[in-house]
């Protein structure tokens, strides 16, 4: 699991994952906080819950996210 709860992330690109929906295109470039990471099997393929600043909370594929703080 690369993401952990409370971590700041950037949604830096679209994802080709099947869970990506058209309205999510407007989220690219936004920053947010991981509120519920993959809680199960540390699966890089799992969807993580991210709260995007001003855009609400969404389940997103991990390949469109990158951490902002590398602590």
């Amino acid at each position: 699991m690369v993401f952990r709860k409370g971590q700041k992330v950037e949604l830096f690109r679209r994802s080709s994952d099947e869970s990506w929906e058209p309205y999510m295109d407007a989220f690219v470039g936004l920053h947010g906080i991981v509120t519920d990471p993959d809680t199960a099997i540390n699966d890089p393929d799992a969807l993580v819950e991210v709260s995007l600043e001003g855009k609400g909370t969404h389940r997103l594929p991990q390949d469109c996210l990158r951490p902002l703080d590398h602590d």
Partner: protein
Amino acid sequence: MAHNGCPVNRSIAAFEDVLATERLGDPKNQRRVEELIQLLTDVAWGRAGDAHLPAIAQLAGELAQDPGEARARETGAAFLGVLNEFREVFQSHIDTHNCASGDCVRLAPAPCQMTCPAGIDVPTYVSLIGEGRDAEAIEVIRRDNPFPWVCGLVCTRPCEFMCVRGRIDRPVGIKPLKGFAAERALSRSQYRNPPRESDKGQKVAIIGAGPGGMSAAYYLALKGYGVGVIEAQPSAGGMILLGIPRYRLPREVIDREVAMLQELGVEFRFNTRFGVDTSLAALRGEGYEAFLFAIGAHQSFKLGIPGEGDFAGVVEAVDFLRRVALGDRRAPGHRVVVIGGGNVAIDAARTALRLGSETVTLAYRRTRHEMPADEEEVEQAEEEGIQLAFLTIPKEVVGAEGRLQGLRCLRAEMVRADDSDRLRPVPVRDSDFLLETDIIIAAIGQRVDETGMEELAGLAWTRRHTIDVNMVSMETNQPGIFAVGDAVTGPATVIEAIGGGKRAAEAIDRHLSGLPQPKMPPVPVRRGRVACREIAANRKMTLKRPEMPLLNIDRRRTTFQQVELGYDEAAVRDEASRCLRCDICLRCGRCVEICRDKMKVDALQMGYFDFDHPVETDFRATAERCILCGACAANCPTGAMRMEDRDGERVLSLCGTVLNRQALLCCEDCGAVLGPLRYLEYVRKRHATIALRADSRSLCDACARQAAAAAVETDR
């Protein structure tokens, strides 16, 4: 008129431009435009009522038909065009107190509300709790979440992660405040259902009585639908009943919340498994017209190691927790090993301890840093004596003669893969060791159990083995069939399921009413604008989030009594007053810029305004430098920053936090207010070379002019 952004906001700007450029000659038409601005501002500020839109349309119509002035007719006609095209948006401002574009800044939801998957108006209910209006707070919460008591105890509280107060010290304790208010309202018989709409004569079947299904049931019942809930288990609650132990969420809490649904007429059919005891065809035969599948994710992943299936002592965490929830109180074993690092693993470990297991070890393949379980839950587990074995990879279940003896493991180290920044655990060579145990509980995640869904042959599933839905409407590829909760998201949070349930209820209502589904997820709705309570800056800064009182450790190790005891009333009221009221202050930074760049005073130390790089905040610092000029308040777009003269003082406050207060000086001749001394000195310093000095006396401008004129006359 421009059609970009919010039409309400744009219309106001257009009318203001008409006035500013003096395009209207007739005073009567100018007055009409002024009145239109006034009414539209009411709409933009969320204070309009049912009479506003008709009044606006009438005024615009009068303008559009004015016989004497062509420009008035053009202005009126242009606005009527906008009103006709965007009437729904205007109406939505009035009905929902929400501006989806955010242009009407007073209607923009706070970050905590935006973050909540159910969109609860957090600042409003926190403010109400702060004032002791607990029942009203519960009413606000239940407009978006029917289970405030459940969420007050077990919510993963994404709102607190986004809480702006967390950029100053610690987030507001939103979850315990909600729990307190729910408990208080219920104990005083003030926890009531809102009135139900008249019966629509249509029925909806919900398969699964978990939080997602029951949320949908609540909102559908309120809309007047007949709702039947089919549940395989003997009680309602789903994962919150079967997966969350009683020491976190007492069963009585769930029962009371479920009783509220039954009071609305929701019918539960327990011990009824879809696909076995009933079917889609049978339910259709009973008159159900829409179906919501909220079947959860109850099937565990397998460990996939040798020996896993050879011994009865290897059990799955969700099965273990389910048995205990349904009344099995036998200790699972003497020495328990739980495999996993999530909340379910922690719950299983703490449950085993309470049932009398002597040692409980939690084996997790990564480090504490990567553990996905709630940090507080992990801490509490350690306090109770759960042993955490990090960097431990299960290799083989070992035993003899059908009896489990232990779990062979490997030590791991975290290694960065060449092609990614992902650290992954890699076994250390020759690091085998044996964890002796007589019971292994596997808690490495769950998936949706598809058993019983065969009848829905055409139903689309994702590659993650979840039901494929449109996340905006929760509709599947089968008309009239919707899905929600863990069955859609995979194992997720209670509040996410509740939010999905509410969305599904709205979508089912649209489906049964023949309306098209929306294309975007709903924007959270503001439920009110509670006035800010005044609090001194030093108190706002020094109030600390209280620690949660816990049950004593011996009882925690031996009973299922609720561990978190909740805040007492004084702590709740204080904690609520730590809220920064981000529903009113949008942190646009205009006040800081004006004070620093225009006035050159730089008295506002609001480091929390920045999301990415918050720096130090100190409300107390304002009083040291602020001259009370009022430039910040005059330029605040939302009215968050206010300056007023009262009781001989000038007071500057931000959302009720008093940043500065100073005594007012008055004209020695006429008594007119001059301002605070610091402000007068600032003005005099700036105007030293041009200002007329009235000796050392404090005079208003008018009296100073008279004094100067008198002095000139005397000189003559």
